[in-house]
């Protein structure tokens, strides 16, 4: 029987849809680890990137944090966090958060930096205070690229959360790592399909959310995805 037929059979087996090693449980674990990390990362990264971009300061730092982030292997980050913090969700969430921060800082910096200076002048002339200007003028214009940064981070976190199985974490990575250990290529392949689908769903789902969030007038202006910072961690 071909591998694809065996994988189809694996998915059809009701036993794989219940219990602690069932697909629903693993899906919830994977999403929970990823969502918590991206949220904590966003709370740290977005204010920093937005502030740096608004004031136009420390541009090199904001851009280079992505380059440094690329140089740090996500796999090593997970293992190091495991050695420091031991078993549990803490090392996974800490390393995934560290991974989520750089693309969000860089993209939100670039997003704010690229707001047309004439628009800022006009806002000033209309009497906007600084905070109001950021909230009601600059941020709406920055949303497309800002969201692209969140999307990039989220996809990378979902991908790297797979590796959490190496340090005894849950999620879909369990099927891949256990499949490799047990030389069970059916489980391995099924796990890979699930991980790939979840990463794609994250990308497409956030792209749809972005479309809803971006004001209609700005949607027509430009295609921000072309300037999205290329980032691949895992």
């Amino acid at each position, binding site marked *: 029987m071909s591998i694809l037929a065996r994988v189809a059979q694996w998915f059809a087996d009701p036993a794989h849809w219940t219990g602690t090693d069932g697909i629903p449980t693993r899906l919830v674990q994977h999403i929970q680890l990823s969502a918590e990390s991206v949220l904590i990362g966003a709370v740290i990264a977005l204010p920093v990137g937005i502030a740096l971009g608004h004031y136009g300061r420390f541009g090199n730092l904001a851009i280079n944090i992505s380059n440094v982030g690329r140089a740090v*292997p996500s796999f090593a980050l997970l293992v190091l966090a*495991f050695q420091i913090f031991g078993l549990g969700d803490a090392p996974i969430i800490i390393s995934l958060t560290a991974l989520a921060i750089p693309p969000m800082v860089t993209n939100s910096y670039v997003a704010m930096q690229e707001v047309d200076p004439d628009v800022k002048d006009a806002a000033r002339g209309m009497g906007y205070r600084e905070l109001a200007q950021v909230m009601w003028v600059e941020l709406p214009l920055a949303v497309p690229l800002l969201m692209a940064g969140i999307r990039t981070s989220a996809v990378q976190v979902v*991908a790297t959360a797979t590796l959490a199985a190496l*340090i005894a974490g849950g999620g879909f990575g369990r099927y*891949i790592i256990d499949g*490799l250990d047990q030389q069970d290529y059916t489980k*391995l392949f099924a796990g890979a399909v699930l991980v*790939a689908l979840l990463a794609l769903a994250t990308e497409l789902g956030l792209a749809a959310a972005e479309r809803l969030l971006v004001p209609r007038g700005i949607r027509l202006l430009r295609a921000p995805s072309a300037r999205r910072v290329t980032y691949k961690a895992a």
Partner: protein
Amino acid sequence: MPGHLFLDYVDPWINWDWLSTHVPVFLAALQEHVTLTLIAVGVGLLISLPMGVVAHRWRALRNPVLTLFGIFYTIPSIALFALLIPYTGLGTLTAEIGLVGYAVLILTRNVVVGLEAVPNDVLDAANGMGYRPLARLVRVELPLALPAIFAGIRIATVTTIGLVTITAVIGLGGLGQLILQGLVENFHTPLVVATLLSIVLALVADLALAGSQRIALPWSRSA
């Protein structure tokens, strides 16, 4: 016998005695790491240059190709390796298919963006001087696209160096193998040293590429 096997022994982050006797292990891992990276970026470049040119020349292809590549790029490397294993087994071929693939996705995009950035006036001038399409491409468009292509090579190289560590899971890994050893044996030294070496390798490669770009493409210095 490494000291970390004894229970009353506190494992330091770097055990210098152990390290000093295991330098060849690190050099071999470093060499494997560099080899895997060079093949991935080299082959990736050979594939993506013509691909980028084609996607640029036939405009109808541009958006579908870049969108499709963007979708492939979201597939986690560990998932891609796992999908390939039943067909190509554990080893170099599986690793390189994945690594070359991701390098192609990065590089093709930069080739297209670089070619698009060539000003129309320059193309008009080249046409006026009698350049044929192929000569114009090779002698006018590609040289002007090189800064963007170089930026792509830098990103692809640094990204690949990071991704190589993940191939430890499928039995390769270069420095990743030592990171995995540190995890499995609960021994800090290989983990910490291999992580540092991997970061240094990525930063050195990035700086070296930036330096060679300055020397090879003096016209891109201001960019």
